[in-house]
């Protein structure tokens, strides 16, 4: 059906390598799902845009060809194919739809442009398309503007639109990466069902081996623009041949927790009846108040890790920000080492520190990283010389070169920046370390390294960590205890092994059931 033959795509001269794709070859037959999997920068998304003929400016095909049904694609012929014979679903549902146009109009455009159907027929088909992708209120969705729909709903609209003209090929570029895990499971099921019913050939781009295990018939593994291994899904997942594939698979954390450690009973952090409500204020602006935290009580034991898991909107990040003192709770009490959290910034600095999610936003781009680590102790009275030598020692502790203190953030990779963020937090010798999704923005192999570092530091320094994550696999590997949050409420908590092996609350069960590839990968 679709054939990509020794395709090479060049990068702009300023890039770190010459070719985004280097001799990429694969076939996609009708009725099968081919997963292209790789880490960031592997060229998997470039492959998708090349097939659509929508390469970003600066990229160009320098060799090879793409053919659909035996006809080589090039030039103007492409536009006639797009939408009609090849559909595409993108990663970011929030920005992929025109914000100023009704959803119905955007879907109808497919038939309006590609067919001669009348208005009534188009309206009927639009409605049927939305019904088919399982939107709860298809009539209402047609009239809605994109911002009135949730991310999962928008992605369903995108799928409906991509499949409107029953194309032979559907390209999905990380379509579930921006979605919550339960929504992801639903969208994956939807794609699988529609593909089965219509016999569409699907090219599915992803970085997540769990998703691969869930959906793929065949797999192609990409590394730096080259396909290093391809084959049937079961073969690649169970008996990977290439060392890179093996390394990637090994880095996927197992959902099953290791045996529990022996913990002491000292409580370093106690949270009692914490309440936080957003958006109730304002006389003229009426908004539905949102209870981000609803009577949350938790306890963290010294030297252990308490995981807080949940989907977006569960309140887990609000909890982290309250504990870190960045937000003031409406009611409730936070005690660190037996004392209520002090109000003063400096007094609190010794008690709680935080590691942030986004490695690119958590360091000041215009200051040397060593300064950023040392400035905290200096603000509390440590002499400059001592603070800087402590910073150098910390850099070595987190696995960086001590000389790196005098460099600027842009000279480091994402994983290295996360290490610097950890060093910055440790410089204050806090009683509690709050880690807010510290590995979510990292590639799976880097993620494994940072998790190993955190475990190692905990063993060496006796760190007490409040670990916020949406990723149950990560939670299983790093946490001693886990608390599951849903809409501001802790629905279940206990030792991670117990909770994950025998979940009591239906929400915990549905979260665990939604983890992609739970039976096949990292088990």
């Amino acid at each position, binding site marked *: 059906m679709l054939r990509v033959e020794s395709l090479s795509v060049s990068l702009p001269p300023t890039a770190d390598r010459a070719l985004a794709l280097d001799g990429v070859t694969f076939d996609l037959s009708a009725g099968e799902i081919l997963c292209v999997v790789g880490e960031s920068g592997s060229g998997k998304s470039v492959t998708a845009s090349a097939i659509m003929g929508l390469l970003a400016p600066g990229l160009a095909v320098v060799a090879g060809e793409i053919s659909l049904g035996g006809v080589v694609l090039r030039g103007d012929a492409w536009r006639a194919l797009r939408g009609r014979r090849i559909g595409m679903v993108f990663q970011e549902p929030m920005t992929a739809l025109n914000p100023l146009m009704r959803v119905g109009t955007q879907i109808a455009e497919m038939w309006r442009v590609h067919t001669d159907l009348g208005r009534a027929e188009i309206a009927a088909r639009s409605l049927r398309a939305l019904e088919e992708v399982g939107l709860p209120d298809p009539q209402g969705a047609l009239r809605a503007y994109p*911002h009135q729909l949730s991310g999962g709903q928008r992605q369903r609209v995108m799928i409906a639109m991509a499949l409107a003209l029953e194309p032979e090929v559907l390209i999905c570029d990380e379509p579930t990466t921006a979605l919550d895990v339960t929504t992801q499971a639903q969208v994956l099921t939807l794609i699988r069902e529609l593909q089965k019913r219509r016999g569409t050939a699907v090219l599915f781009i992803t970085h997540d081996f769990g998703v691969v295990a869930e959906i793929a018939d065949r797999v192609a593994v990409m590394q730096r623009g080259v396909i290093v291994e391809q084959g049937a899904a079961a073969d690649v997942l169970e008996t990977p041949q290439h060392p890179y594939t093996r390394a990637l698979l090994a880095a996927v954390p197992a959902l099953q927790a290791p045996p529990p450690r022996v913990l002491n009973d000292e409580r370093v952090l106690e949270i009692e009846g914490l309440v936080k409500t957003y958006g109730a204020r304002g006389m003229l602006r009426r908004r539905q108040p949102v209870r981000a935290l609803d009577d949350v009580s938790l306890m963290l034991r010294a030297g252990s890790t308490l995981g807080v898991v949940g989907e977006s909107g569960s309140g887990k990040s609000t909890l982290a920000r309250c504990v870190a003192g960045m937000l003031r709770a409406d009611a409730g009490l936070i005690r660190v080492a037996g004392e209520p959290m002090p109000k003063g910034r400096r007094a609190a600095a010794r008690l709680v520190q935080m590691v942030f999610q986004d490695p690119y936003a958590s360091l000041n781009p215009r200051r040397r990283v060593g300064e950023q680590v040392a400035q905290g102790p200096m603000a509390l009275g440590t002499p400059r010389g001592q603070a800087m030598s402590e910073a150098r020692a910390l850099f070595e502790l987190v696995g960086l070169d001590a000389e790196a203190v005098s460099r600027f953030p842009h000279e480091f990779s994402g994983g290295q920046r996360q290490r610097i963020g950890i060093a910055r937090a440790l410089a204050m010798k806090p009683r509690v370390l709050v880690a807010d999704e510290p590995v979510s923005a990292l590639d799976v192999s880097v993620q494994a390294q940072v998790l190993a570092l955190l475990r190692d530091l905990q063993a060496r320094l006796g760190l007490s960590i409040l670990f916020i994550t949406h990723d149950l696999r990560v939670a299983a590997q790093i946490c001693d205890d886990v608390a599951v949050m849903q809409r501001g409420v802790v629905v279940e908590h206990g030792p991670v092994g117990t909770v994950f092996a025998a979940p009591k609350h239906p929400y915990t069960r549905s979260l665990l059931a939604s983890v992609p590839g739970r039976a096949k990968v990292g088990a």
Partner: protein
Amino acid sequence: MKLLALAARRLAASLPALLLILIGLFLLLQLAPGDTVDALMAQMGGGDAAIAADLRRFYGLDLSVTARLGAYLWRLVTLDLGFSAIYGKPVASVILERLPATLLLMMSALFFAFSFGMALGVVAARRVNQWPDTLISTLGLIFYATPSFWFGLMAIVVFSVYLQWLPAGGFGDVAMGYTGWAAIWDTATYLVLPVLTLALIFLAIALRIMRASMLEVQGMDFVRTARAKGLSETRIVARHVLRNALLPMVTLIGLQAGTMLGGSVVVESVFTLPGLGRLAYESVVQRDLNTLLGIVFVSALLVIAVNFVVDLLYARLDPRIAG
């Protein structure tokens, strides 16, 4: 209904600024050396102190600053702008006589600058880094750098003195007694040069904003989606890019309304138009502070009104605003 609530909210939000302006200006004018009576006395060729004192009492200038501020604000609430000693008429009626010319000038210039700026910006963005873009962008830079009063003078030299196509100043030929279409045509010929002059810099700003906005929107995800849907480039621009790119342009109108009113001072004085701007200039020269305060008040109201319309327009264009 949501739109109305939004409108009311925006209008209420502009009241504190208006109050601040009035208090600030009133206090500022207290610092001015000499008052209306001094100016009046100078015009009468001097007079004794007793007459001056009587006049001061007559105009209420002998009261304390706070009392006069209170009185002034109260009179504004009742839309009484006071009395112009120079023109011998209530300020409100002096301003009302001059308002239509300025409004006509402003609206025409705004319309011209907006529509041509939009068109040129679209062309430039569609041909980015090719010769039409280079030409339009360069023209934009030059228009931006041209002082409007100088452009007006040079336009008079070329079109009125040498070519004699258009009148050099004034506002319609009353002596000819035109009616109907002839009168409109007559007024239009008088308006061409002032409108071009006033619009020049806004045209430059508008085309630059439109070009940048088009380029930004063209790189957005939903435009890529539109391409993936197989739409033609024309349809993508017309249906998806244009409306999104217009949003910053609408904001621009609100931001530039005040600057345009300021610009009309210069333009009206170059083309001797009987408008609000020229009145402001005259009242500065003649130290007619009541009139100057009145003009500033009316201008602030105008700017607020324009911004109000802009807010409504924006909410109409962008469904995310009204919810």
